[in-house]
């Protein structure tokens, strides 16, 4: 569990458009957040769904600040973004 301490899960869901992954990845890179794993799908015809695991060990931002910057970067698109400490998923989905 100690290893997970600085890991975050970013979820982006909404209307598909060109360049979503690029925008999200740019914000993370600019803030020294390292992507560990990424999973992206188009559900049905146009619903974009991305889940991404990242390490924020070297970042000075709080989760609220990371969320704000991600929201800012995709504000022209119809997307919802959430950022959560990965411990939530560890607790809820692993016994």
């Amino acid at each position, binding site marked *: 569990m100690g290893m997970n301490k600085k890991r975050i*899960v970013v979820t982006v869901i909404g209307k598909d458009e060109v360049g979503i992954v690029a925008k999200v990845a740019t914000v993370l890179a600019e803030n020294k957040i390292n992507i560990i794993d990424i999973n992206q799908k188009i559900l049905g015809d146009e619903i974009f769904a991305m*889940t991404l695991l990242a390490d924020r060990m070297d970042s000075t931002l709080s989760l609220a600040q990371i969320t704000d910057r991600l929201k800012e970067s995709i504000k022209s698109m119809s997307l919802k973004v959430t950022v959560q400490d990965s411990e939530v998923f560890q*607790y*809820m989905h692993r016994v």
Partner: protein
Amino acid sequence: MEFSNEEILETVGMIADDKLDIRTVTLGISLLDCSDPDPAACARKVREKILTKGEKLSQKADFVSDEYGLPIVNKRISLTPISQVVPVADPAAFVEVAAAVDKAAAEIGVDFVGGYTAMIQKGETAIDSALLEAMPEVLTSTRRFCASVVLASTRSGINMDGCYTMSKIMKDAAERTAAYDGIACAKLVLFANPVEDNPFMAGAYYGAGESESSILVGVSGPGAVRRALEKLGPDADLGEVAEAIKKSAFKITRAGELVGKKIARQLGVSFGNLDLSLAPTPAAGDSVGQILETMGLAMPGAPGSTAALMMLNDAVKKGGLFASSSVGGLSGAFIPVSEDASMIEAAKVGAITLEKLEAMTSVCSVGLDMIAIPGATSTETLAAIIADEMAIGCANGKTTAVRIIPAPGKDVGDFVHFGGLLGEAPVMAVSQVSAAVFVKRGGRIPAPLQSLKN
């Protein structure tokens, strides 16, 4: 990835669509070191203790909420029963200390504080009597301080004099807030066999066996449970339904466990316990009644409601107990009328009655909760309703409670509006058959037998 897409999206959906949230983070604070025969000194000590222990509660709760993306709806305080803190039999002393509690709560940004509490299951001390005398005034002059009175227990029976006294106090408090449909009574809970580590208002108090200060968490996700049952479809048998409820309760409880431990660590206090109760709010989808509907009842109150509720209550516990080693509090489904959209609808069309609600409380937590009755209901009838609910708790060795609002000037068919999380409710019919002679006998109903139970 460590987690599958489905797992992550399930959690995100539970929070965003199904309203999974941490219903309350309640900081329990012992006031045992604040007792003082001088009311002004007592009030000052109590105020300082609340401010010292609670000043960071809101800030830390918000921080943890942001970290995990889990909304924390309420931040609250529960206190040592005030009857054990104010050592003088003077109603004015209780009014003074209560005002200090209310003010301190406002300063640290909590909306409710529990602990204006007396335990009179076997009788009143002079201090209890003073506390009760001041109660109607305290309930109306403070905004945040909630009251609870223990009237019965499995080991001591039912204090019928206490039931009658409380019935009069409820009518008085309702009259004093007649302009707001008697809302003062929404802050008063009467108990049989209460728990000492309940995080939920209005019945929370911080018992004598608790530590100096600890975090008590109430987690809630009726919407998430309903969604899990919807996915099963109408053909799944009841064993499968119970299984789905357990799995869903497990996940909800884990979220609460994580948040509770983290906040306790941040505040430097112990993690007291997690309360598994399914608590509804008036918001669409956040309803225990709707779970019963998804299980296959046309409306809550239909025949079968008691059986369905027993299963729901039991499955939530079985799922939750595996998810946390700190389960405590009330830990059962709540069925308040005014705070649950589906219950409000059922009450409106007469699908659910006071008598059916009473039956349902024998298999769930907590009791006759947030029910509006005609303001003209006699004190004797109200006392008898209270005694009936106490009897269910007493005989079954469980917590039961009464939070009824005798709405002044309102009659069956009228509506009362409390606003916010307290919601709204139609005034429900009360039996017109008298119990006055029985109630006026007074005295105590002896403790029920604990063997030969059939």
